């Protein structure tokens, strides 16, 4: 819902970094009163980033601690370096069900006892699978991190996956999907993943489909846990108000005797993008949709792509409040509450998505705007006057993400997950600053060409289909009742119209 997320700003700074390359606004001498032009900024102050330190325990568990004192909070995250991407195709949602079941009972605690124990400490255990990782996290007052880690260790290492808990979670997951698929935006993202990745792992719905969830049984969950939840396939990140030495001591205490299986580590699946990912234009006709979700989707890049920073800056030209998509769609035309894009970088090539929700009648216009803005980025160089502030946005967001214990841990965990050194944190700003207009245009041409982009619209088709068809004669229309997320065909029946 439209909740204004309370932004997090604390210890790390953006001052220096940003102002270094932003020309102070308008000191143009004007004859007016002192109030007619904004006063220029003062001298910027410098900033420092915290430095993560790392050790590997005897069982292969990587432990990373990043100190940042000031607020008496500590965040912890245990990552298993596989998530939904290793779900067998017929069992989509297995990784996520496994993660969710961790907190539903261990050898020494029931589901209720786990919840009571962690919540008595003021925290909660957040367990889920994502792409490329499964995570269990907690955020508590620093005085309570020891007991919190004991519980975290218990659920990761000794879950019992009781049959009745599997059944209960299955029902809950089905209901959650029922609710989620009432949202045009959620449907659009699931459809986009199928179109871009076909039957490859990233094409599956992360939380599964009603059919795949119905197929998952306890044995599958136990097997998944046994294969992937092992210390030599996991990373523990602790961040915030604790000393590194204490962090390592706690890690040893609660995870040191987690034994490494003698079997070799599972082999990572190789990304297999659909051979000919020809772009599609797909409408999911949902006549009761109160607004249409419009999405442009195509492949993006891997996290370790050498053009990663070019990608970040290019995406920021499009996204963010003053990015081009929001400029054109919201600010100039009032067609949406917000338009933006994400370059979702993963272990393998992830998706690039541009999106906006708009009233059904304007869906075709918004689809056209998404396409033309992507296209404009590769057809003409961006002016420096526009590029410089967008780089400031990237840097500011990065710095703010490091300002809370949980944000700091998430950032460090992401670097660790993808095998990127922590000195990257200190190179980030220089790397962003070094991107030129030429880089942006080149990146847009090489990785974001509109000609390879698909369009997905979920909404009341009769309001926008004629206009959309004029732009895209090849449009496929799938009534929501016939939509099937189990395959890239996306429909259960032959097209009837």
């Amino acid at each position: 819902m439209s909740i204004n997320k309370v932004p997090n700003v604390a210890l790390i700074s953006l001052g220096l970094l940003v102002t270094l390359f932003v020309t102070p606004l308008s000191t143009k001498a004007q004859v007016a009163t002192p109030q007619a032009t904004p006063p220029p900024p003062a001298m910027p102050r410098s900033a420092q980033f915290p430095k993560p330190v790392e050790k590997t325990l005897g069982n292969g568990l990587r432990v990373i601690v990043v100190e940042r004192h000031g607020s008496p909070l500590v965040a912890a995250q245990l990552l298993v370096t596989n998530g939904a991407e290793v779900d067998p195709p017929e069992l989509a949602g297995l990784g996520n069900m496994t993660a969710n079941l961790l907190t539903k009972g261990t050898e020494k605690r029931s589901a209720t006892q786990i919840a009571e124990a962690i919540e008595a400490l003021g925290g909660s255990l957040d367990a889920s699978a994502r792409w490329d990782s499964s995570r269990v996290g907690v955020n508590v007052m620093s005085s309570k991190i020891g007991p919190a880690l004991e519980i975290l260790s218990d659920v990761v290492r000794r879950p019992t996956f009781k049959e009745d808990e599997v059944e209960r979670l299955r029902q809950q997951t089905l209901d959650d999907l029922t609710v989620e698929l009432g949202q045009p935006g959620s449907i659009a993202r699931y459809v986009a993943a199928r179109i871009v990745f076909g039957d490859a792992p990233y094409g599956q719905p992360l939380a599964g489909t009603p059919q795949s969830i119905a197929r998952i049984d306890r044995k599958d969950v136990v097997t998944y846990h046994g294969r992937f939840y092992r210390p030599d396939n996991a990373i523990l990140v602790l961040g915030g108000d604790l000393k590194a030495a204490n962090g390592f001591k706690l890690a040893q205490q609660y995870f040191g005797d987690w034994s490494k299986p003698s079997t070799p580590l599972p082999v990572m699946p190789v990304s297999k993008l659909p051979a000919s990912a020809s772009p599609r234009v797909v409408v999911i006709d949902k006549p009761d949709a109160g607004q249409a979700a419009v999405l442009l989707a195509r492949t993006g890049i891997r996290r370790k792509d050498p053009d990663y920073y070019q990608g970040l800056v290019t995406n920021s030209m499009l996204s963010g409040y003053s990015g081009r998509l929001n400029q054109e769609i919201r600010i100039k035309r009032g067609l949406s509450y917000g338009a933006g894009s994400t370059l979702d970088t993963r272990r393998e090539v992830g998706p690039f998505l541009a999106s906006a929700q708009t009233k059904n009648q304007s869906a075709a216009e918004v689809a056209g705007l998404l396409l033309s803005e992507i296209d404009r980025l590769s057809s003409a160089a961006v002016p420096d006057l526009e590029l410089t502030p967008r780089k400031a946005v990237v840097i500011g967001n990065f710095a703010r993400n490091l300002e809370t214990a949980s944000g700091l841990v998430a950032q460090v965990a992401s670097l660790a997950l993808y095998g990127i050194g922590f000195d990257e944190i200190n190179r980030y700003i220089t790397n962003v600053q070094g991107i030129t207009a030429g880089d942006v245009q080149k990146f847009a041409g090489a990785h974001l060409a509109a000609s390879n982009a698909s369009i997905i619209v979920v909404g009341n088709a009769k309001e926008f289909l004629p206009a959309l068809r004029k732009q895209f004669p090849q449009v496929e229309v799938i009534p929501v009742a016939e939509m099937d997320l189990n395959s890239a065909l996306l429909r259960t029946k032959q097209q009837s119209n």
Partner: protein
Amino acid sequence: MKQQKFVRVFMFVVLFVIALGCSAVSRAQGSLPRIAFRDRNLANGMRVLSAVDHSSPTVAIQVWYHVGSKDDPAGRSGFAHLFEHIMFKATKNMKSEMMDRLTEDVGGFNNAFTNADVTVYYEVVPSNYLETLLWAEADRLSGLTVDQPNFQSERSVVEEEYRQSYLAPPYGMLEYLIEQQSFIAHPYKRPTIGSIEDLDAASLENVRAFHNTFYRPDNATLVVAGDFDPKQLDAWVDKYLAPIAKPSIALPRVNVKEPERTAERRITHYASNVPLPAIALTYLTPSQKNPDAAALRVAATILAQGESSRLYRSLIYEQQVAQSADATPDLREDASVFYFNLVLASGKKPEEGERALLAEIAKMQDAPVAAAELDKAKNQLVTNELRQRETSNGKALSLGEAAVLLGDPNRVNTDLAQLQAVSAADVQRVMKKYFTAANRLVIYYLPKTEQSTSYLRSSEDQTRRVMGGQGR
């Protein structure tokens, strides 16, 4: 929503409950660091609160205007919030969207929110831009010069916000009904987002009148938190904000008193796009300034925060009657509404959900909560507040709320004692006092297509339904 939000967003009750719900300080291990602040009152009536924290070279600037959707002009529901959006358009010395140039373009950000009682504008910027932002806030307090095309375009944005928040998501209209139906006399009965019809009727003339009436220094509180020099702040405040004159006309205040409820009221609403039936129960409770507010916050936490909460455990885990269950103490300035909303598990009837929920409420009335349960709730509330105060902007929010809505900025440091003092007997007392049948509104929110059919279905039906959405 998963999509990143980068918009001036309508503040919907839940967030505020988080912000409001958690002023806390503590003894023993869970202690909150005190917020040391300065409190200045300018001759023109503006209050200036500031709290130094040099740990990061950033500064948060907030301006709290004591005007909210309860002050919407007649026939203009949603206007206070629409006006909030317009404050980012042209002013005397700034072009439209210049606020974004002064914040986003230098690596900071801005946003604003409106609720029933207040409208709050905030920016977080590198600290060397503090003077620039004080100038900008002064400029938009001095007057707006927005033109018709910009006004209309932003009004369309707000209408899309309405659709995105209330029409697109499955239970958006249930939230709307909770706001709209819980009050019968007080203007709180107008949801903050308003209606498309009333938004369409709004004019530039309304904008000018609203600014003249409510956007004045004696109705504003400036909060600055983060990296700044207090002396320099004083000088800039004197230079940019102190000269703004206080109008001579009186500031209108809502003084409608919501009558007590005398009998249970029940509403059944049929809507499209209702994946699973839902219900809501609402109870009127007193102003957030009432001493019972602390016990109500503790009660809501015991009932609904986390998987060890009573509603999760009983309704979702044990009985499996609900897909989700929430309790929100929605504390407001004039009168509050404590509401529950449940989405039912598939195959469950609304009557079953209502019965199960009422049974949990009765348990809280019949016996005091255990000491461990009470301590857990207090730990949860303190930790929530600590997380909010990790950032300068969060600290400023706590400070602004204490000053503007609770009437005393010191409450940012003293409310925790009040919270810690809540006893099991207090919780039981407020549960008995407010959660009566006569004080209850019950909303059934049901799918239109099933107006006359049963909600019971087999799991195969369930599957078809997931795939088929709301098929006609």
